[in-house]
């Protein structure tokens, strides 16, 4: 039914999800809290240098790949390319390399980018509270840090060397960020690493605990599924589309006011399907190698993208499902 037709609501949605099942209930809760809107963002890969060995990641130290780190100028050029496509929310991503991708480097980039953007998030190595505080002052308003898995045994099996080996250090990072006044904190698990039910339950509990303690902080959740990359690592606990859909619904029911972020790791058809279920933020037109927007394939990507559509194509797909693609939903002066 077209949205503007003046006929009574279709029975499936008007039954408030009780008979329609959790799919509809999750969709309804999402619409109530976030409306029929999807916020668009783009990842900007700064560096694939990394001193960790993580078995599932293309950037892992042991992989013989072309390494590259963008200069501040390169980064500004990549960002401008994204701005021209309409993006106002950027996520800076990099491997873990304390010397190359340092808080100082990130601060400099933030100082350059912030005036042009609505919001700037980082998905890099964990930092201590003071570093986060300085980054906040430079204009970083979001920090994304996934625990990958809450199963400590599996965590040790896949994180073979480097600072990321410390489960505790990673677990502490969201709190460091929250205490430093970061507005939005993204948390998540790498789906496929371990039993999804166990991991999801622990992640939800972790977010609930954080929400109580840091009641002024906004949280988002992301459930990236393991994708093929230079490591050729097979997911030990793969999750089907059907189960993945269930995971999104469970998150929505458990955390009605938490944004759900969906990357281009998923296929275009599946992403389109997830729009009306619970997702609130989507990346689009992504490249996962540093410098990849202007100079693709000069460096190795972190993982292979599934949804290869351009930003405008994704926006059109969102519109065609009766949702509004939102390019800007923040103000950089805040």
């Amino acid at each position: 039914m077209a949205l503007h037709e003046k006929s009574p609501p279709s029975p499936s949605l008007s039954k408030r999800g009780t008979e329609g099942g959790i799919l509809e209930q999750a969709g309804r809760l999402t619409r109530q809290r976030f409306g029929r809107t999807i916020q668009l963002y783009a990842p900007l890969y700064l560096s694939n240098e990394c001193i960790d060995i993580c078995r599932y990641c293309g950037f892992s130290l042991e992989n013989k790949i072309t390494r590259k780190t963008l200069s501040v100028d390169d980064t500004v050029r990549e960002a401008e390319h994204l701005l021209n496509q309409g993006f106002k929310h950027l996520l800076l991503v990099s491997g873990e390399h304390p010397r190359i991708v340092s808080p100082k480097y990130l601060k400099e980039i933030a100082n350059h980018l912030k005036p042009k953007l609505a919001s700037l998030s980082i998905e890099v190595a964990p930092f201590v509270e003071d570093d986060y505080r300085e980054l906040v002052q430079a204009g970083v308003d979001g920090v994304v840090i996934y625990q990958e898995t809450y199963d400590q045994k599996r965590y040790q099996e896949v994180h073979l060397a480097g600072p990321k080996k410390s489960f505790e250090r990673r677990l502490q990072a969201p709190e460091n960020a929250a205490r430093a006044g970061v507005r939005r904190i993204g948390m998540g698990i790498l789906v496929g690493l371990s039993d999804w039910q166990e991991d999801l339950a622990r992640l939800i509990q972790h977010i609930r605990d954080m929400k109580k303690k840091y009641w002024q902080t906004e949280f988002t959740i992301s459930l990236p599924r393991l994708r093929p990359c230079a490591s050729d690592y097979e997911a030990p606990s793969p999750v089907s589309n059907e189960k993945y859909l269930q995971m999104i619904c469970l998150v929505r029911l458990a955390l009605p006011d938490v944004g759900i972020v969906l990357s281009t790791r998923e296929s275009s058809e599946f992403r389109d399907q997830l729009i009306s279920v619970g997702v609130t933020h989507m990346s689009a037109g992504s490249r996962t190698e540093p410098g990849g927007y202007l100079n693709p394939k000069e460096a190795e990507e972190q993982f292979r993208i599934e949804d290869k559509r351009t930003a405008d194509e994704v926006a059109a797909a969102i519109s065609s499902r009766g949702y509004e693609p939102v390019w800007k939903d923040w103000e950089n002066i805040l």
Partner: protein
Amino acid sequence: MLLIADKSFSSRLLVGTGKFPSGEVMRESLEASGTEIITVALRRIDIAQPEKDILRFIDRNRFTLLPNTSGARDSKEAILLAHLAREAGLGKWLKLEVIPDPQYLLPDPIETLKAAEQLVQEGFVVFPYIHADPVLAHRLADIGCPTVMPLAAPIGSGRGLKMREAIRIIIEQATVPVIVDAGLGSPSHACEAMEMGADAVLVNTAIATAEDPIAMAEAFRLGVEAGRKGFLAGKAEEKLKAEASSPLQGVIYGTS
């Protein structure tokens, strides 16, 4: 007529612009609602990219724009946003929202009052979004806010007049128009608020996220009109026992 600051309005329904499925549906819904005042979140406005901006769907000659400070967690941030609105040429009318809690989105009374004081002094026409707190409503009216906007229930919850008693007190004591804001989920909720004597209501989620937002906008318009008429007509007294609508006194039975 609803008189706020120096302007009069015939519609008593204010509509928010967030959460609509598209700009076109929003535009048609605004039309169907009959509204004359609409709020837009400053954080959604992108002056640099007008072709992707929410404002392009709003005819500013027809509607009074009420930019809101959503996203502000304290008075400092709200004031920054207000200044941004002024610099962007969005006028001096401003819906003041100071919300530090992203879960229930409840406003901070202390920071709201602080921001309102400064903004009124700077010449802004401040519409403060508040908890249904009668004393705070007094304080805000005293410092020069032309209206107060108590919430009926948390934003977007659609739970209706959960703060009924406090809102009743605010209305009873108000020296400025009272606009019931947030939490109204259905046209009957809006009608009820108007019957209680609210001067206007503001609705967003209930319209924007309805399955048919345009029809819902119209339904809210009718609800507000019915409630207002009901209020003006003066409600008949409530009684415990039945009373026939055609009095029987004087009618003689069984004589023919």
